């Protein structure tokens, strides 16, 4: 069973690479679950020594602890870390490409890409001109704090930079896994239906900003923007919204303003 998702082969580690490294990587470090098979029984007393141990331990504790370490690291380096989540095909990578091309002169971007397989997204980001590392989870369906911790070390993020983590395209699982991000951005597109937030409430509830992409397609669809916002606000009243089209550029300025303001709150 894979380390995070309970599927696939035991002990298979995610692979973390920079573009161009594919030919000479090899996997090591197996972080196994150490199952205790020690059956050494003590001599039988004839009566039980039962005792109760109060544990009160949070099950997702390990990921949460690592996430807090990441968070501390980002704060110390004044890095704005964003966790970009969405279903596959909403436009996460395209949004990053355009952001890097448009704002690369003004802002320092570092990118972590997450996918099951391929270096495709990382290669696109490299073409756009930002330092990037690709995490291939294999059969895993989300990034976790440990993967981000390792990827960040490989990336050598600079002080004051904006780190954007493009999570695996999946509206279910990433919601449960804190990466240590400063903010979580959920991206949906107008081709997905207004009730997306209701169908995936955990994801929308755990996000700070909702980007609604592909507004250029609105004339061809029955998508009701206001209804989508209402549904999202039912699940998360504090959610902020930006509507944009990565393709035409409409609304992108609002996104860039949000980035600048969030990275440097004192310098608005």
């Amino acid at each position, binding site marked *: 069973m894979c380390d995070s*998702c309970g599927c696939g082969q035991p002990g298979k580690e995610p692979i973390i690479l920079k573009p161009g490294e594919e030919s000479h990587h090899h996997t090591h470090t197996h972080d196994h679950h150490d199952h*205790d098979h020690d059956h050494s029984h003590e001599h039988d007393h004839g009566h039980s020594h039962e005792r109760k141990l109060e544990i009160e*331990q949070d*099950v997702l504790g390990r990921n949460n602890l690592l996430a807090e370490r990441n968070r501390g690291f980002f704060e110390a380096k004044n890095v704005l870390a964003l966790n970009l989540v969405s279903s596959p095909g909403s436009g996460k990578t395209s949004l990053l490409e355009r952001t890097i091309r448009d704002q690369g002169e003004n802002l320092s971007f570092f990118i972590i890409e997450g996918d099951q397989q391929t270096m495709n997204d990382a290669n696109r980001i490299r073409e756009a001109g930002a330092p990037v590392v690709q995490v291939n989870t294999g059969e895993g369906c989300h990034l976790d704090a440990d993967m981000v911790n390792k990827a960040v070390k490989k990336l050598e993020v600079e002080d004051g930079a904006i780190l954007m983590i493009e999570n695996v395209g999946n509206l279910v699982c990433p919601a449960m896994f804190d990466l240590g991000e400063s903010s979580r951005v959920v991206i949906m597109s107008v081709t997905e239906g207004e009730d997306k937030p209701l169908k995936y*409430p955990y994801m929308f509830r755990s996000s700070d900003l909702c980007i609604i992409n592909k507004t250029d397609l609105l004339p061809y669809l029955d998508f009701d923007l206001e209804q989508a916002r209402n549904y999202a606000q039912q699940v998360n009243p504090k959610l902020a919204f930006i509507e944009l089209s990565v393709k035409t550029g409409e609304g992108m300025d609002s996104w860039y303003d949000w980035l600048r303001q969030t990275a440097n709150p004192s310098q608005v």
Partner: protein
Amino acid sequence: MHEFSIAMDIVDIATSTARKEAATVVKEIEIEIGQLSGVVMEALEFSLEAAMKGTILENARRNLIIVAGKARCTQCLSEYDTDTLFKPCPKCGTCAPDVIQGRELRVKSLIVE
């Protein structure tokens, strides 16, 4: 969806605690699962059954405690029960709840020997 990895984490927590306390058998494990935690009970039951085999929890009784979901209305501050993340306030009708209970996923206690 991650019930199996959650089950394995539960077994890890129980095993390492039991070992630290020099226990050799776990007789019972008590687990708190919030109604709003996103965990599917049947899937977790099934996964625990599998994950506990061959460990010191093999024959342990499983006591799964469901923690009810509770929300506080951010408008009128009244508290109410809920089994979803977006139930409107029964008092003022506003749909702006703060979840105050029900997201737990915790190994509460063990009975060991």
